[in-house]
């Protein structure tokens, strides 16, 4: 259906269902209860989940299929954000022109950077992309401040022209919209002790992500995707058969750059501010981590990885000692203090430690990422089905063989 195989279509339907029902799924604990701390079902974080999901899906098209490890993809994310905010400032608060410009600008830069960087392979390629991104970051933070507003980040002001939105200086900052639907609009639903929030922005991002995901599946299954996989398994052999692989890898690079630009543009649509930190090497590293954590080369892995990392960043960093004391308040005093002391280093200001330990644990025990973890659990339940997992298992399998 929709040009997808049966397994892929089921996967797509599952992702669509989970995404669209996210406001329920991510809010399992009643509002006001002690465990509400772990709820992630508020618009800002849900938007981040799907946006970084798009970023990681795009990155996976390059890294998962061709094996080219780019360490500079955050540059395209940042470029997308800057282009979108400039569109809001100059043209209109409608998100469509902003997103179009984000994708185009990111695509053009990806074409240039990819054309140069793809002349080398392996770690030399990684360092070339890293160098371009770091230059973009350093310049955006300082010298290019007139364009980027430097450290503070590019933001809207009351005096922006916004030519399409009709003149006149508003009294408060305008908000991003899609033909009249404001991105920050929310509706909430109270069901007993639970409280669910549905944001226009989130559903817009979710639809964009589903489209991106659908396109990614099509790319994975197309002859073009097959060609990219062939590049990964043995580029030399491809070259000996007289085939020039460069156009294929460049196309993959540009496509994944455009995905990053789209994600950057969406970030700006949800919150019209573009900061230079979005382009720093740590941000590029983050998408690499998301992809590997979820399972590089698998379809769903990058989305899972993105969700995981953003969840840690936003939820674990907010647990402080006072919250811990509340959780364990029912226990005897000595035990309560003991537990708080034990857990203290891993939460709040120590959330990085938890993240580092998790990276290590996943790589050591689940070389195929979270997807492999899921498959192992799945296999426990249906032992008979030897070929469990289908396409996803193949990808995870392929990855485990060393790339040398």
């Amino acid at each position, binding site marked *: 259906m929709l040009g997808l195989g049966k397994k892929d279509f089921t996967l797509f339907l599952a992702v669509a269902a989970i995404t669209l029902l996210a406001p329920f799924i991510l809010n399992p604990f*009643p*509002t*006001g*209860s*002690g465990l509400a701390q772990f*709820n992630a079902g*508020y*618009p*800002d*974080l849900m938007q*981040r989940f799907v946006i970084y999901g798009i970023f990681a899906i795009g990155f996976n098209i390059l890294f998962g299929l061709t094996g080219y490890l780019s360490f500079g993809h955050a540059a395209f994310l940042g470029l997308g954000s800057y282009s979108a905010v400039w569109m809001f400032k100059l043209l209109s608060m409608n998100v469509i022109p902003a997103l179009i410009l984000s994708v185009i600008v990111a695509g053009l830069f990806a074409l240039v950077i990819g054309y140069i960087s793809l002349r080398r392979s392996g770690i030399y390629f990684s360092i070339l992309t890293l160098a371009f991104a770091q230059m973009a970051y*350093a310049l955006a*933070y*300082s*010298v290019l*401040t007139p364009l980027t*507003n*430097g*450290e*503070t*980040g590019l*933001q809207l002001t*009351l005096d922006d022209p916004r030519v399409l939105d009709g003149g006149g200086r508003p*009294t*408060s*900052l305008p*908000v991003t919209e899609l033909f009249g639907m404001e991105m*920050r609009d*929310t509706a*909430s639903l*109270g069901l007993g*002790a639970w*409280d669910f*929030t549905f944001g226009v922005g989130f559903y817009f991002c979710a639809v964009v992500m589903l489209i991106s995901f659908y396109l990614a599946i099509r790319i994975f299954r197309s002859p073009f995707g097959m060609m990219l996989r062939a590049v990964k398994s043995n580029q030399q052999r491809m070259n000996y058969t007289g085939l020039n692989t460069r156009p294929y890898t460049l196309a993959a690079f540009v496509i994944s750059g455009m995905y990053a630009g789209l994600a950057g543009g969406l970030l700006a649509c949800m*919150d019209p*501010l573009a*900061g230079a*930190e*979005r382009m720093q090497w740590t941000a590029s590293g983050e998408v690499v981590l998301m992809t590997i954590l979820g399972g590089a080369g698998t379809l769903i892995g990058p989305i899972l990885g993105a969700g995981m990392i953003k969840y840690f*960043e*936003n939820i674990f*960093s*907010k647990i*402080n000692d*006072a919250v811990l*004391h*509340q959780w364990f*308040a029912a226990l005897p*005093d000595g035990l309560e203090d003991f537990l708080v002391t034990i857990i203290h280093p891993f939460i*709040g*200001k120590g*959330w*990085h430690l938890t993240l580092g330990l998790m990276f290590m644990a996943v790589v050591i025990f689940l070389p195929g990422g979270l997807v492999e973890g899921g498959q192992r659990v799945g296999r426990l339940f249906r032992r008979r089905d030897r070929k469990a997992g289908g396409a996803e298992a193949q990808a995870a399998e392929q990855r485990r063989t060393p790339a040398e």
Partner: protein
Amino acid sequence: MSRHFTRRGVLKSGAVAGAGLALPTYLRAQESGFTNAPTGDTVILGFNVPQTGAYADEGADELRAFQLAVEHLNGEGDGGMLQTFSEQNLDGTGILGKRVDYVTGDTQTKSDVARASAQSMIQKDGAIMISGGSSSGPAIAVQALCQEAGVIFMAGLTHSNDTTGKDKKANGFRHFFNAYMSGAALPPILAEQYGTDRRAYHLTADYTWGWTQEESIKAATEALGWETANTVLTPVGAGDFSSYITPVLQSGADVLILNHYGGDMVNSLTQAVQFGLRDRQVNGKNFEIVVPLYSELMAAGAGEAIKGIYGSMNWNWQLQDAGTQAFTRSFGEKYGFPPSNAAHTCYVQTLLYADAVTRAGSFNPCAVVEALEGRTGGSGSLEGIDSASNEGFLFDGMGNGPTLYRAADHQCFKDVLVVRGAENPTTPYDNLEIVEVTPVEQVWYEPDHPQFAGGDLGECNPGA
């Protein structure tokens, strides 16, 4: 073990009550007329400070101050500045009878992350006020977010002119001083110490805050007769500043001004001293180094290198007024060391917010803005300043003498400290000594001053 009325005890009873009710304790904007109106018996404040990255220790100190302020508001501890505050509306029963609860987040000192963290406090935890921060970029970004979302932002440590200049917002308030005030307070002392015939060489961190500080200090020193030999921008986080310091030796300058903060300042100052700059004679005068913005943590990081170096500060625990002493005592007794000036500003901001809500009789951000502008009681102007803009909320007893929250731009005006690295500190905490308390008249400026021009407060936004 005697069971007094401890913080944990209160938390426990609060948690039990909370679990029993299990109802949302705040309302969405559509239902109440403003974002996150508290409905239960608690009100939630959001403390957004750097917990990872270079400023994590400063963030930790801010968090300590916030926790202390919350205790005092809830009637625990010794009450700190509640007794010395000129407004006596806060009686230790929370804010408007609601117990104060708080959530914390990590800004990582990045504008993007700080905004995401503040956003989650607003959307998920129902925070009605956001405070904290240790750098101007994130402060400005979060202030803009609070304006859009319809909550109050009480800035923490932010020194850039832009926070209450070109990026000012109606929902945002800054108690901390700014680069212009450093420029107004410090140079007269420098002229007194080093003479008016000097050539200054600026090394400036290459981002917005660095530029505004360089602009302010340069204008002020040149007005006193100093020449500016050169201004050089250095990359943030450069680490090794040697290649920026060696040209100073050959420039004929006899003063080096370091417009750096945090780790950059620690490294550039330490390395400048290693290069023997302070042992040199240029133009027949001793070579001097100046660090316009000081903090206790930077001073500790630079160690010996800060001895005799001049700079400015918003506040210092060694001041002798009743407010400072009360705050230093309760902070020192709880944590075992004196508070930093970042901690002070965060503590004061929290109390000021609580007081404004009490005077307004409402959590509605627009009512709070009116109260902090002095339009619902507490209005006044600073003595000795003849200006139409000299009006707003006037208070005292919070450590800096009579202080005005100016209505025109939401900037506090108060005395500013000129400090110097102590030659013979006796403890790790008195490595800075107060040279002069610069009176507020001297650091006053008009809201339309060129270094602050281009901004607009806009209208307060309650979020509905």
